[in-house]
């Protein structure tokens, strides 16, 4: 499809720019579309796979990652990309985010981070800046923001990056590298929401982002850089660990337990209390 059909996004939304980049990347990847599976949760960002020529499992709010893990474990031959918003990925799905990194599967995690719950019309998200006001935070957000990039570096994710919807070419390279990287890759994408985030606008980001010259390979150094936010916001691959080994799923598809396997099951004892 050439995406600009019926899309549920507002004119000017950063997601359009990301979608265009994704469409180009998918065409250029050395992987046929039929082998690419997107999983997503619920939110404006989570609608992304509907506007791409891919397989998808658009599941529940917060659950793009467990579904992605299930697919990758069952079918190591598929290229699995989880796509969702900041609320979905780091809020409702925050626990899965942590544990998916621990699982070391070859999954790409892409987040449209607009620092707001957009679909539900503008509440604070886990990445909202302090003091932003909205209907449910009339006094201003009292919480400190979660920094997904810093968290991922801390957890030992081997590929941690940040992109910006306003920089097409740079984002394109990042998405490509993230997908082709063998192992868990996080790419958090700064995505201006023109309807509900009047602070973190294209201009706001443009004035602050700076590109990483090259990926950091020292984790402590990477943590320091990842921690930067405010006046200066790093984009690019912040941490890269090419040595990290990812976990391979087992060959299951079209394999079968044999009669011998089943006979062997009758001799199992389980020496545990439940």
């Amino acid at each position: 499809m050439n995406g600009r059909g019926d899309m549920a996004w507002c004119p000017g939304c950063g997601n359009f720019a990301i979608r265009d980049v994704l469409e180009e990347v998918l065409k250029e990847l050395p992987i046929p579309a039929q082998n690419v599976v997107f999983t997503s949760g619920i939110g404006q960002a989570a609608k992304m796979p509907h506007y791409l020529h891919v397989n998808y499992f658009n599941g529940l709010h917060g659950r793009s990652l467990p579904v992605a893990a299930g697919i990758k474990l069952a079918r190591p031959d598929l290229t699995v990309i989880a796509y969702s918003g900041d609320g979905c990925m780091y809020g409702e799905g925050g626990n899965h985010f942590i544990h998916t990194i621990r699982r070391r599967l070859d999954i790409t995690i892409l987040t449209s981070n607009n620092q707001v719950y957009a679909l539900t019309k503008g509440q604070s998200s886990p990445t909202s800046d302090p003091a932003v006001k909205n209907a449910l935070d009339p006094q201003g957000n009292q919480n400190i923001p979660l920094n997904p990039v810093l968290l991922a570096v801390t957890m030992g994710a081997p590929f941690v990056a940040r992109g910006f919807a306003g920089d097409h070419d740079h984002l394109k390279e990042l998405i490509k590298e993230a997908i082709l990287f063998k192992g868990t890759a996080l790419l958090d994408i700064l995505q201006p929401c023109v309807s509900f985030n009047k602070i973190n606008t294209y201009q706001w980001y443009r004035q602050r982002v700076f590109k990483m010259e090259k990926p950091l390979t020292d984790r402590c150094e990477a943590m320091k850089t990842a921690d930067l936010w405010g006046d200066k916001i790093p984009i690019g691959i912040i941490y890269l660990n090419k040595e990290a080994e990812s976990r391979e799923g087992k060959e299951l598809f079209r394999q079968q337990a044999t009669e011998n396997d089943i006979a062997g099951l009758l001799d199992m004892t389980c020496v545990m209390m439940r």
Partner: protein
Amino acid sequence: MEFNVLIGGEAGQGAFSVELELTEILTRLNYYFFATKNYMSRVRGGHNFHMIRIADHPVHALRGGQWDMVIALDAEAESRHKQNIRDKGIYLAPASAREIEKEARDRFRDVRAANNILVGIVLSVIGVSRQILAEAAKPENLEHLTAGLEFAQRWNLAETCPVSPKAVCPCKLDGNQAIALGAIIGGCQFMAGYPMTPATSIMHYFATAAQRMPVHFEQAEDEISAINMALGASYAGIRSMTATSGGGFALMQEGVSLSGMTETPIVIAVSQRPGPATGLPTRTEQGDLNFVLQAGHGEFPRIIFAPGSIDETIMLAAKSFELADRYQIPVFLLTDQYLADSVQLTDEKIPAAAQSREHLIFDNTYRRYRLTADGISPLTCPGLSDALVKVDSDEHDEEGKITEDLTLRTRMVEKRRGKGERLLIDAVPPALYGYKDAGTVIICWGSNKLIVKEAQEMLAREGIETAVLHFGQVYPLTADMIAPWGLASKKLICVENNAEGQFASLMKRELGLDATHRLLKYNGECFTVEELYQNIKQLLSGRS
């Protein structure tokens, strides 16, 4: 002839090992037996006891009443169980257990040898000779078991309650092993789960199997993740399941609904324990029928199986995967701690070949939710051709794209309902035991089957004619399933391990049948045969 023995002590004292070793060697010796346990939710201390019923005929339940032998490993076991020994029954006091332990340490330099010495004593009591033992025992256990026979000789216990071994080629399984086995036979290759009693050993069996064959177990970070992982694997083309108990299932509910909407096949084993909340983690109850029946928001079809024996557990577990695939729905295996922890023999031939999902190939006009006459759309998985597989938890069109077209919405609701109508033809009818023309029918479901069946046989021996009707499929219930038995004009007694009579209410709602009597138990323990026999007899003599 039969012989009922109880062995009790603190957690970690060895009573469980004695049960394991004893049931193992009884199976090798071709004895019929039934074993189950009553244990506390702790790793050390407390009080656990294991009950083994050995017989010269098939037994599948606790007899109840007095014990032929009690082995008390500590004072607590003595104070609780000594009084329940029958007249001239055998009692091994904690002092005897210590003597055995001393022997194990002095002679074998291994305290754990005490477990097999105890097993040897029990074997000697039921008449197992040195020779027979030598043929059947594993070589590494023989010395210890033989020492047990010697103790029994010295204490004049040998052959005091002889039982003949009459089983033919028996095979021993507990309920959770039967679920894992049935699942693998049903072609299940993926399980994700989060440990929770009494479901954990299903995962343990599956993880053990995964070391030897093309199946995978993944321990999830929580139950929400577990069910979503299983759905992911199923979407990817692999028959998948998850297992949990009530509290974990509470967390899985959104996934049940997700399976309903995305039409992703999944099997969910819910092993019940008494609730609400954390309840009694290691005890039994049938309190979650309503919960499983209603779980998940929105309207979508489901099937709930509640097997009552080892054979039936294997059969229904395997069948669950076939039906989940055929109708693209969630299918439940509703069991409980009693079934999970009971070790039984089966003479039935266990199917040896595993089934598998058929993977159809389509072209790029493929629509995952194609509208068909019976509501069943062709199922395939990604990566087989240029047919893209698009599934959505939002209401969707035939292609799997999010939609708010309300006419389409209506058609999609009807499509999902259509599957619910269609699957009625596959309903597993209840099984009837006893006198089919009897005026009284004892209704039961799930793990109570064989307890009720034996109670019915006891009544029959006294000339009291009743029938037992056991439901292995508890939902959906259809008029056709019960048509042969003319239940409307009979006196119905419903036996359940819960306080509300949930199945009786369901029968009323779905079939319009009134069970005028409900025999309910909800202290966390299973029924015994003796107890049910007494209760039913009292009911029927009008003295209730």
